[in-house]
């Protein structure tokens, strides 16, 4: 079971209260976890990864275990602590503006 924390805008969009849990098939990756999120919450389709290319939206970031995974291959397997549920995957709206 993968624990995921979503940014506030996406929680409102999908009517989600707090942390969610998803169980993607196979070894968890950014792409498979977000695919599982989108399957359960269709309102979130395309809001984190682009449709088609499944590449990260420029102002969405992925953190886990105090590490920025945003620039990692989104199809690479997530850290064990995320995979076994001891740490959440944090999906963040990048701090931008001024």
């Amino acid at each position, binding site marked *: 079971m993968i624990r995921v924390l979503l940014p506030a805008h996406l929680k409102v969009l999908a009517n989600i209260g707090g942390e969610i849990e998803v169980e993607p098939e196979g070894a968890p990756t950014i792409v498979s976890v977000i695919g599982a999120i989108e399957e359960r919450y269709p309102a979130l389709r395309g809001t984190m990864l682009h449709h088609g290319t499944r590449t990260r939206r420029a102002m969405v970031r992925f953190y886990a275990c105090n590490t920025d995974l945003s620039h990692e291959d989104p199809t690479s397997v997530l850290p064990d602590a995320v995979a076994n549920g001891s740490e959440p995957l944090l999906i963040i709206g*990048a701090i931008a503006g001024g």
Partner: protein
Amino acid sequence: MSAVRVLAGTRKGAFILQADAKRDRWKIEGPLFPGWEIYHMTGSPADPQRLYASQCSSWFGQVMQRSDDGGRTWRTVNNEFTYAGTPGTHQWFDGTARPWEFKRVWHIEPSPTNPDVLYAGVEDAALFRSDDGGESWRELDALRTSSTGSTWHPGAGGLCLHTIIVDPTDAQRIYVAISAAGAFRTDDGGATWRPINQGLHSEYIPDPNAEVGHCVHRLAMHPAKPQVLFMQKHWDVMRSDNGGDRWHEISGNLPTDFGFAIDVHAHEPETIYVVPITSDREHFPLDGALRVYRSKSGGNEWEALTKGLPQEHCYVNVLRDAMAVDRLDSCGIYFGTTGGQIYASSDSGDSWTAIARDLPPVLSVEVQTLE
């Protein structure tokens, strides 16, 4: 008793303002979708309870919303806008070729007769159609892949398809406008398109009379005279009496003919409204005085409408999709500003009242007349 519903899209959410036919007391609901940009929210002429909204964000992209109960509840519909085939390229500001890339939906145009049929005008410029109430979209790609598409280039606001008009007497005839490419028309439901920019003159492009490249800001039509089109161009207010085949200037005595919004009175096809803006360098009203100009003669002869509008220290803008009219006997005119005001007139523009004052910058205003 009749009622009026004003649908306002803003930089930070959507608002619904409602009043009875007297239009003297307004109930404001919102923000809907707080924190998101609502480029456009509109209703189906065939089913006023069916609303659509374009919700977007620099972070999370495009979301499309639909309501089947007049805006009380909403649900997301399909937000996947995929260009047909291999998208190809258009021109970028520096003259290089740039691949087409979807950014956002600027304008939603429901069919006059079927609430499940709607069009979406998007950036980078393309036209999409849904036949199932937004559950799926397909591009009418002949517009973009036509002979001129690769030469289109963005204006300062982006390469956006911002105006869609479906001829109420012939659903196969559709007009669109793109900044900064110009106006285009199909007579076969989108299978083929042609530029309709003859008569436009734009000093800011290498050939001022070019077939495409004109920065058209907005088109308007009265349903009783579908052959007559009005245009607010970057500079110049224009008119066509033959479905866009040829345009002529009707700026007449306007104090400046730069602007964004243009609309037509609900019952008088020759009465039109614009909001002159100082210039392309100064996107605010001339002399700090917010004035709507009305022509009752289809152009050229204009009168300033000022009663109830700020006549000093006003430096807001009125964007292209931010003016609309209702269909009550005494026609109501509405417009929103980048300062967050929505002004309304219930007497065809003779006098104005702010029905909302402190909203986020207003991107679009639509009006539904409810029976």
